[in-house]
């Protein structure tokens, strides 16, 4: 329990330092772009595939229960609610946590234990700004983009399925899909995306940046980065849903 509060404290300090570094110049624009590219290129393929499969499978599995009521025309709106409100942010976040979070943890961890971070610091570069801030910014701002991709691909998967089974036209599908979606849903998902991305970045960087005990510490950092960010993502998901529902 002692270490728990110590961790909370040091994570808070870590986050505070992030904001201090992120909003003070000089800005590492090039490195941010580089990290954005890494986040995007690492997860795009898997996220697209998962989005497509999620859309198709969710549509397929929802059809029987709606067909019982003769309401399979509700499929698009049902899938839209599920994908846009919940599945796209959550699935994307979990994948990015697994792919990018672990990578950040391992990369920074190995840089830490092989003194690369110290080397950077003594050669006149602020490693927190250069390594940590850029990564957190990259995950935070790439996540909404990735979630939009996932949502889009997921809906396309759903459309494919609905088109083949109910021969619904694309405009009709879009109309039906958007009929149950409101702006709040989009904003909520984007807000979720930002907080999930921030969580993944902070968890990965914190674990990596504070890695210890050689190569063993690197593995531990990568592992903890994923586990902690997944836990936090679930907690955030539940919290944000509660908040949004109270606004709705």
């Amino acid at each position, binding site marked *: 329990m002692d270490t728990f509060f110590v961790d909370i404290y040091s994570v808070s300090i870590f986050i505070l330092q992030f904001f201090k570094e992120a909003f003070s110049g000089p800005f590492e624009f*090039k490195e941010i*772009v*580089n990290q*954005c*590219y890494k986040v*995007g*290129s690492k997860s*795009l393929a898997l996220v697209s595939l998962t989005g497509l499969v999620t859309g198709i499978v969710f549509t397929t599995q929802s059809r029987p229960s709606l067909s019982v*009521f*003769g*309401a399979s*025309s509700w499929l698009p709106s049902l899938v839209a609610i599920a994908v846009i409100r919940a599945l796209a942010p959550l699935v994307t976040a979990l994948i990015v946590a697994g792919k990018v979070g672990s990578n950040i943890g391992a990369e920074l961890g190995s840089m830490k234990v092989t003194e690369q971070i110290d080397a950077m610091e003594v050669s006149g570069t602020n490693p927190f700004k250069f390594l940590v801030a850029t990564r957190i910014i990259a995950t935070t701002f790439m996540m*909404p*983009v*990735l979630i*939009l*991709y996932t*949502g*889009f691909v997921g809906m396309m998967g759903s459309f494919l399925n609905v088109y083949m089974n109910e021969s619904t036209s694309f405009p009709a599908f*879009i*109309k039906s899909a*958007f*009929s149950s*979606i*409101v*702006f709040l849903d*989009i904003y909520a998902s*984007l807000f979720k995306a930002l907080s999930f991305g921030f969580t993944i970045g902070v968890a990965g960087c914190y674990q990596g940046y504070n890695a210890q005990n050689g190569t063993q510490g690197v593995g531990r950092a990568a592992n903890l980065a994923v586990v902690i960010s997944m836990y936090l993502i679930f907690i955030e998901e539940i919290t944000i849903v509660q908040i949004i529902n109270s606004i709705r």
Partner: protein
Amino acid sequence: MKLFENNQTVKVGIFIFIGLLILMVTIFTLGGQKKTFAKTFVVNAFFKDVSGLQSGGNIWLSGVKIGTVKKISFQSDYQVKVTMHIETEAQKYIHKDSKAKIGSDGLIGNKIIIIYGGTPTTGHIEAEEVLAVENGLSTEDMLATLQVSNKNLEAITTDFKSISKKIDSGEGTLGALLNDPSIAVKLNETMVELQSTVANLKVVSENSKKVVSNIQEFSGKLNKPGNAINDFVADTLMYASVNKSLNELQKATGFVNKFAGNLSTASEKLNDKDNAVGLLLNDPASAASMKNTLKNLEYSSAKLDENLEALQHNFLLRRYFKKKEKGKLD
């Protein structure tokens, strides 16, 4: 190396651009669908019961979405104030005496407000005005109506069942007519007999005509004087009595003639149909009960029609009817 880096920046740029594009398209599609960017004006309505209407619910005019419910609040006891934002475009189609009712876009779908009716001469509604309301058909009402219809249907089918049972078991005239072959034979015999009777009667009447003419001739001869019988006949008393008997005889012939005519038409009617249904038409009791049955059937079919109409608007079954219609077209 430089090229690669630029390439990377471009890729990230494209990636983010496409992401933003998806976002923009989503927002505009949603905006278009929700008509967020259309100009609206405020109209209020006071309902006793909004049946679970929620803010954000749609407002329909002639089946077209023209606005959304912005706020639902209690005004006083049994009064719920519904504030609606209606597109300015639709303003001219809503008249001062138009009414609002709570409807539904499906049996378990969202509650909506339906605006309907009104006369153009009253002019269109202004912002902040209050619409008259009618408490619409709720789901429970619909189900209640359906319940009554079901009971009627049940009664009708029970009636039918007992009728058909009776007919089948040969009870009543209709049953007997339909089921007993001997009656048909008898009827046939009767007709033949009637025919022969009529023929006989014709002969009788011919004969009686002859008798009458004979008598007339005889009486004429009698009227001539110088005949032995004349004297006898000249006795006026006797003449009168003979005359009287002759008249009566003539009357009787007329009756016989009439009877024969009646019989002839009756037999013709019977001859028209190859079975005994013709007779049924002349049986007032059967006809009355038949009439009643038909009336009941008519009433129930009208009820059924109503139910079907209601069901057609039911969201869950709409698809079935659409399919049916499509099938018809094919």
